[in-house]
């Protein structure tokens, strides 16, 4: 199962920008180093340049003059995709409709003139690995979306590529299937130990799969880091707000206290220039009655989710605060609540 044949490759981009013939700048000059065997997720809204970057790595696009793509230190900038030995998985599956499932999976090996017996063995191995052995002789139009993406993965891996490139592979699937396949892809990438690049606009997918996440915005890298770093220490407001939920309070700092409309927060390390603080829903809680508190708000909406209650609390700001409460308490609209914020979760950007 761990057999990819080829040693995982390290990939480096230096000064890679991309301008399309119509003058659109899809990608600003970019430098990026991807370690061998690592799973890197390119995350961002549509039009942020993540797919363009993937296509430059794949060899489907060439960077503007001056840009370089290196595989294990070797310049492959002008090497077309068919000579780079990379596996690709597309959102639209892109399976060959004129071939069976087995024909699709064995295609890359047939191109490489591998003897028939070996192709057959490798195809059965792939079918078993993706748990689709019974579909071997089916036509593509007889498969469901989830089955098609399994075939596409098997087809890409069968040739033992040096890197696996996945372009929004789960976007076309329904939510439940997406979760199942995400788990499968995760364990697949771990067991193969292959260098993988995964493009998505779904932050939950990015957090779950990526060893590192490259957050992109307007053709630029906004931040590169481990999922935890990106979430807890976002470098820009864009990253902070694109990933997860962010609460925001405006006010001013004096004597180690941040004061806003709803009250004051004791924060000894507060930078004196801060006029806005950001924090995650898990860093704020509703205090028990009787507990001392500096912040007060009014419940604008409460949604009981079973294990917790999601509260929207009005504190006189443009946006209500989002709070996840696990208290065994029945909140209702208009309740006055005391709030406490963990200063360790406070960010100034």
């Amino acid at each position: 199962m761990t057999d990819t044949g080829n040693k995982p490759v390290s990939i480096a981009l230096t000064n890679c920008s991309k301008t399309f013939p119509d003058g659109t700048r899809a990608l600003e000059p970019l430098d990026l180093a991807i370690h061998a065997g690592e799973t890197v997720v390119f995350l961002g809204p549509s039009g942020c340049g993540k797919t363009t970057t993937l296509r430059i790595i794949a060899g489907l696009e060439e960077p503007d003059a001056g840009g370089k793509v290196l595989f294990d230190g070797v310049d492959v900038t002008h090497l077309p995709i068919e000579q780079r030995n990379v596996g690709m998985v597309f959102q639209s599956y892109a399976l060959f409709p004129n071939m069976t499932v087995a024909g699709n999976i064995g295609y890359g090996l047939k191109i490489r003139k591998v003897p028939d017996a070996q192709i057959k063995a490798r195809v059965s191995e792939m079918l078993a690995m993706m748990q689709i052995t019974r579909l071997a002789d089916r036509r593509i139009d007889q498969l469901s979306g989830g089955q098609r993406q399994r075939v596409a993965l098997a087809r890409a891996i069968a040739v033992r590529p040096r890197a696996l490139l996945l372009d929004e592979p789960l976007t076309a699937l329904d939510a439940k299937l997406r979760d199942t396949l995400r788990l499968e892809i995760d364990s697949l990438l771990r067991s193969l130990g292959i260098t993988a690049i995964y493009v998505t606009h779904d932050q939950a997918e990015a957090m779950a799969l990526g060893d590192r996440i490259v957050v992109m915005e307007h053709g630029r890298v906004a931040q590169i880091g481990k999922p935890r770093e990106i979430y807890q220490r976002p470098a820009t407001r864009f990253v902070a707000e694109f990933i997860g939920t962010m609460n925001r309070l405006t006010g001013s700092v004096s004597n180690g206290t941040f004061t806003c409309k709803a009250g004051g927060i004791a924060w000894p390390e507060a930078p004196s220039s801060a006029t806005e603080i950001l924090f995650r829903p898990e860093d704020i809680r509703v205090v028990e009655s009787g507990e001392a508190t500096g912040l007060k708000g009014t419940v604008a909406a409460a949604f009981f989710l079973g294990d917790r209650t999601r509260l929207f609390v009005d504190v006189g700001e443009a946006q209500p605060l989002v709070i996840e409460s696990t208290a065994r308490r029945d909140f209702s609209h208009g309740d006055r609540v005391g709030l406490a914020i963990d200063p360790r979760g406070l960010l100034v950007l």
Partner: protein
Amino acid sequence: MRHETRRLILLLLPAGIVFAAFFLLPMARLFFIGGSGKTGWAAYAAILTDSLYLDSLLSTMAVAAATTAATLVISGISGVFLQRHKFPGNALLVSMLTFPLAFPGVVIGFMVIMLAGRQGLIGQVTQALTGEKLVFAYTIAGLFMGYVYFSIPRTILTVMAAAEKLDPKLEEAARSLGASPWRVLLDVIIPGLKPAFISAGAICFATAVGAFGTAFTLAAKINVLPMVIYTEFTLSANIAMAAALSFVLGIVTWLVLAVARTAAGSSVAAAG
């Protein structure tokens, strides 16, 4: 239930009437006229035994097949190119390529003569270059050229429409698996265009079999079946033979197309 049946019969009626009036009855009549001549039913046998008829039947099929093959190659390459590469004048070029649709066969024949006839352009150029005049307008090659010329507009639009529906991701997937441009053509583009090739090719073949005007204009040494039918009908007044030949021409064309469709059928179905 009975009501439903009556409704279906009613809906079938227009097609049934047209089929009977314009196809079944004339074909049946043609078939019987074919057997009503001096030689009786032997007229049908003559098509296979008389070398004049058999040769003309075979050369008609050969020219039509060659025309279809050449047209599909040319339309396939140009159609995919014009669909993929938009350049200034692209739309104009496409509409120019479909221009010959309106020309009667006589005009096409005339154009072939102007190009490859005794005073034609090709003749003048070859004479200047080699001292010998190349003239082929009045041979089967001239006929072939004229047929290809009027077949291209009939196929190129179909091919372009099909090329537009080809998923570029399929080609990228094939390339990522190591396929050269040539393999991409064989494994992705041609299978993707196959249904269009079959339907356009069928029309192309049938039109080439029945084309008369071009052959008539280029007359000289060409002996395609529509010309033979014309000669039997008007000059020899051998109406029975003309009818027999017409009937066989229709049946053979239909058979060739049916066989081609069946042969391609399984893979077309697989292409979904």
